[in-house]
């Protein structure tokens, strides 16, 4: 969807992407544009460096929830705070996928992972963090939305939000991010169909969909 949007907006030759450390680590092989691979959590800082050198080019980061909401919280919050004209695609799958299913900051209360074998206990490690809501409170952010990949209408909305996020960057309005609730059947221990259901039943009630900020 990201590639489609870049194509539709006709900005392919002036756009670069940044792959994170996580399951999207090989994204640089899947986008036929200039690409970076960043150290774990640091993609927004790398994007900042790129954008300051080439302010008339476009850049997006593609980050998981461990990358963005744990090790890289400083970078994402400060990039939004500075109003960096970059776009972030934030894949929230409530788990660390790449390293084999450990607990993420986004893991739901009660959800079992390899490092919360009895289910996440909020007394022990808090409640899941809602990044979209948090970043929407920052004055430098210009477009913040949360979408999900569980149904066809939601897929369509996700693509619209991604387009809007890039348009926000093109219009130089500020920081833009689309948080996307995504399935990780392998590490959730579910079939793909069950995983889609779980997004609707468990994730969306805690992570409401919608546009949190648009300027």
């Amino acid at each position, binding site marked *: 969807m990201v590639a489609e949007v870049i194509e539709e907006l006709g900005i392919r030759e002036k756009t670069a992407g940044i792959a994170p450390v996580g399951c999207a680590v090989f994204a640089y092989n899947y986008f036929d544009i200039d690409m970076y691979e960043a150290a774990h959590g640091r993609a927004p800082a790398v994007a900042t460096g790129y954008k300051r050198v080439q302010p008339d080019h476009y850049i997006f980061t593609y980050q998981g929830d461990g990358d963005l909401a744990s090790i890289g919280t400083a*970078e994402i919050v400060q990039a939004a705070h500075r109003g960096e004209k970059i776009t972030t695609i934030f894949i929230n799958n409530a788990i660390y996928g790449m390293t084999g299913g450990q607990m993420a900051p986004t893991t739901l209360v009660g959800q079992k992972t390899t490092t919360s074998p009895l289910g996440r206990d909020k007394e022990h490690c808090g409640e899941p963090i809602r990044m979209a809501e948090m970043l929407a409170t920052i004055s430098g952010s210009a477009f913040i939305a949360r979408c999900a990949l569980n149904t066809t209408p939601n897929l369509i909305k996700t693509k619209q939000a991604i387009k809007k996020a890039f348009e926000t960057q093109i219009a130089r309005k500020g920081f833009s991010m689309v948080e996307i609730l995504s399935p990780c059947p392998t590490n959730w221990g579910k079939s793909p169909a069950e995983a889609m259901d779980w997004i609707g039943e468990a994730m969306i009630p805690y992570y409401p969909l919608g546009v949190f900020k648009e300027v």
Partner: protein
Amino acid sequence: MAKKLMKGCEAIAEAAIQAGCRYFFGYPITPQNDIPEYMSLRLPQVGGCFLQAESELAAINMVYGAAGAGARVMTSSSSPGISLKQEGISTAAAAELPCVVVNMMRGGPGLGNIQASQGDYFQATKGGGHGDYHVIVYAPSSIQEAVGMMAKAFDVADEYRIPVMILADGLIGQMMEPVDMDQVGEVHLREKPWAATGYVPGGKKPRAVINSLYIETEDLDVLVSRLEARYEVIRQKEPMIETYKTEGAEYILCAYGTVARVCKAAVRILEEKGVKVGLVRPITLWPFPYDKVREAIAQESVKEALTVEVSSGQMVEDIRLAVNGIKPVQFMGKGGSRIPSAEEIAERIMEMRRA
């Protein structure tokens, strides 16, 4: 041009700008704050960009982004901040990105103090971050020399696609000296066809992938072999050293940075007493000038060498490696920030003579 009295940090910053540096990302830490402060005013004047990052981690990754886009870019910090940058420096080395990192060393370990020190020699020359890589390390002993190094540092970084470190003790940053800013040296800008400046499918420029991940063993082998071959060329071509009155000397002092200047004063004190002492001062700490150091110390006339550092003994290991047991090498120095005086160094040589 007439010489102008300048603070070391400011002279280094101005020299970097004259060397074509247009981007600076950094986080405040004493004793190097005058570099970012100077950059914040000057870079916008020359069409560049200064940005205060939220941390040293972010700063070095902004450098990674800017270097990947083909810019001449630098960051500066002091010891604890340089520790935080190490993952990024390793990543930049692997991604073959040119950049310049200034370390105004302060006393460590931990937060240590904010006085001048040379405790980061190991970190700078023996890795610092993880994995098989090197950065080129220059150690200026005066502000003028630091100014003259900046153009070279950026050029060499571009030529070998390697991070370059200016390893200076806090004294260089904080003292004021008369400086001739015309001595920045020639600047050579080069094309960077590998940079992420936009990809046109079917065009002349290949698609840029700025990357440090090579998950297949064979692929990582290719990268590491390529880096090692380049390091070998650097070891052959880039070592720099100053030798001072070494010919026919009885004792050889070994020191780098401002300590080497104190050693020169000691050489002169001893000369007046009729003791022939010389000094070797490595200017590049990596690649280390092993051959020239050995040559000076292996001479017939030399009885012993004495390495002087503001550390508990770090460069002395490379001196001993260079000398390889041919002559005894003693060490004088303390960790923390105590800089020995010329008189103390001269006295130590007199003691070695009496022993």
